[in-house]
């Protein structure tokens, strides 16, 4: 198709959005009494070099459907807040027991387990509050906001990311697909769907964005697992805990799955071709998830 041959500078599009989102997150969480909790929240949400993939997908989906990106920013920030909250809780000693995240000490290592739990507990509601208080009411009617809030709550809840984390900890090796879908696919799905909801997408469009986002979220993680496994074989180090698709099925099978996901994600975008160039960010996003052709952040 014409889309696949058009060159699009995803790196510039993405980096520009990262800078804007970082500024808005910085503004959204200002330190006040009691300082410790705000510092703990900021530590994880404003981590240097964060790729902001969920917010970027949300903004891109909104723009695809002709929505104004200013309408999507508050939800994009909220996605990052709830994402940070679940990562903080996933790293806890009673969970994955991860002392580090993105190359720096994890939240509880710095602020203590009690503050880390509370920082997560505060970030979830802050996300919802942020959507309502910052979304321009002239751009997004309230009933859409309610659908966005319900979508995010469902994604992080007991049948979404919390379920994924639970099976990651307690499930057997055959639960690896479920964990991938829930722990990683859910965030991608939710991000794309929320962007669509804000722009007033039709039900059919929402369903396509749902499948697209889920495929890209899982793809991203499978490729992460493959890259990690390649590093691992070099110096035998690896992240503790967590179910890796690669370690259960091997690199070759994982690469096959990744190609299949790439194709599936693009198929979901077919019906959006009428939107022309506005489709390019979401389209290029798929290839980035699969190929990692450039690096982002610092």
């Amino acid at each position, binding site marked *: 198709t014409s889309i696949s041959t058009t060159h699009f500078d995803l790196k510039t599009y993405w980096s520009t959005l990262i800078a804007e989102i970082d500024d808005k997150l910085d503004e959204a969480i200002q330190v006040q009494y009691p300082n410790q909790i705000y510092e703990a929240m900021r530590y994880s949400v404003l981590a240097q070099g964060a790729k902001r993939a969920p917010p970027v997908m949300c903004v891109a989906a909104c723009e695809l459907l002709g929505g104004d990106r200013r309408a999507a920013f508050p939800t994009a920030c909220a996605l990052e807040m709830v994402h940070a909250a679940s990562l903080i809780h996933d790293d806890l000693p009673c969970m994955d027991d991860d002392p580090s995240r993105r190359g720096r000490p994890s939240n509880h290592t710095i602020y203590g387990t*009690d503050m880390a739990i509370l920082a997560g*507990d505060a970030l979830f509601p*802050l996300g919802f509050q942020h959507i309502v208080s910052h979304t321009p009411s002239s751009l997004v009617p309230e009933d859409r906001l309610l659908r966005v*809030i*319900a979508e*995010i709550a469902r994604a992080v809840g007991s049948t979404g990311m*919390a379920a994924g984390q639970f099976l990651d900890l307690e499930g057997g090796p055959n639960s690896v697909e479920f964990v991938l879908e829930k722990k990683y696919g859910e965030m991608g799905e939710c991000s794309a769907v929320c962007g669509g909801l804000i722009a007033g997408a039709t039900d059919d469009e929402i369903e396509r964005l749902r499948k697209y986002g889920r495929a890209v979220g899982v793809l991203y993680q499978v490729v992460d697992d493959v890259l990690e496994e390649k590093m691992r074989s070099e110096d035998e180090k690896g992240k503790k805990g967590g179910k890796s698709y690669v370690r259960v099925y091997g690199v070759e099978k994982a690469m096959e799955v990744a190609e299949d996901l790439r194709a599936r994600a693009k198929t979901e975008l077919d019906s959006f071709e009428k939107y022309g160039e506005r489709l390019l960010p979401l389209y290029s996003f798929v290839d980035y998830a699969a190929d990692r052709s450039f690096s982002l952040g610092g």
Partner: protein
Amino acid sequence: ESQSSSSTSTFDFKSYVLEKASSVNTALDSVISLQSPKTIHDSMRYSLLAGGKRVRPMLCLAACELVGGDQSVAMPCACAVEMIHTMSLVHDDLPCMDNDDLRRGKPTNHKVFGENVAVLAGDALLALAFEHIATKTKNVSSDRVVRAIVELAKCIGAEGLVAGQVVDICSEGDSSVGLEQLEYIHVHKTAVLLEGSVVLGAIVGGGCDEDVEKLRKFARCIGLLFQVVDDILDVTKSSEELGKTAGKDLVADKTTYPKLIGIEKSREFAKKLNMEAQEQLVGFDVDKAAPLVALANYIAYRDN
């Protein structure tokens, strides 16, 4: 005990409480079905259906009815505030926090399901509260539902329950904690969610801004009252009567009202708060205000 003022003499508070608690319990029971993964949903149900007094949902329903709304429009909010209350207890009881083994006379959530499940069940209850209000509130305009959601979010986060718990943790073992800090802890740990419960009910019930603010003040007073009475009971009652570890606040060297100002002054303070609360209800329909008047008196004079 000056239990009854003229307006409550004909009001049967006991039946009212039983009736509301029963409709709330029915509603809560149907919210979380046993889906997969079963353990998380078991854990959520274990704490949510552990038989609390449902004070918060009751406040929410009573406020809704006071401003002229039907109970059914506030039921999703009523369930949500109980979910938030429950999740905060589940997380506060964890070993890295207050390290409590007993809650409402039963082993705490992490004792039964493990710490990891307790953290996740708490997170899931928090999310469910918002999802439930957003999707299940019927016959209320979207702008009112959105306002209710912001109110609830503020109650929980770094301006609400979390702030109270943070300051509480940081002042543990600190003998220099003064009245102001103690009040900050109680207002945030207890009063804000009681306030939120009342305000949510008034908003979805269709109350005007003035009514919502009066009810907010009412709730703020009874929220603090709840804690002052709790502190008094903690010194004067045994574990068995309370169904939790009594005197724990004193053992952990926590500051309490009786420790700071003595039992007598604490009792006087409780009386003052109750009066101030009830003053906010003047001007509302007397019959419709009766449940809240009785509830304030119940909180003031309860013995467990």
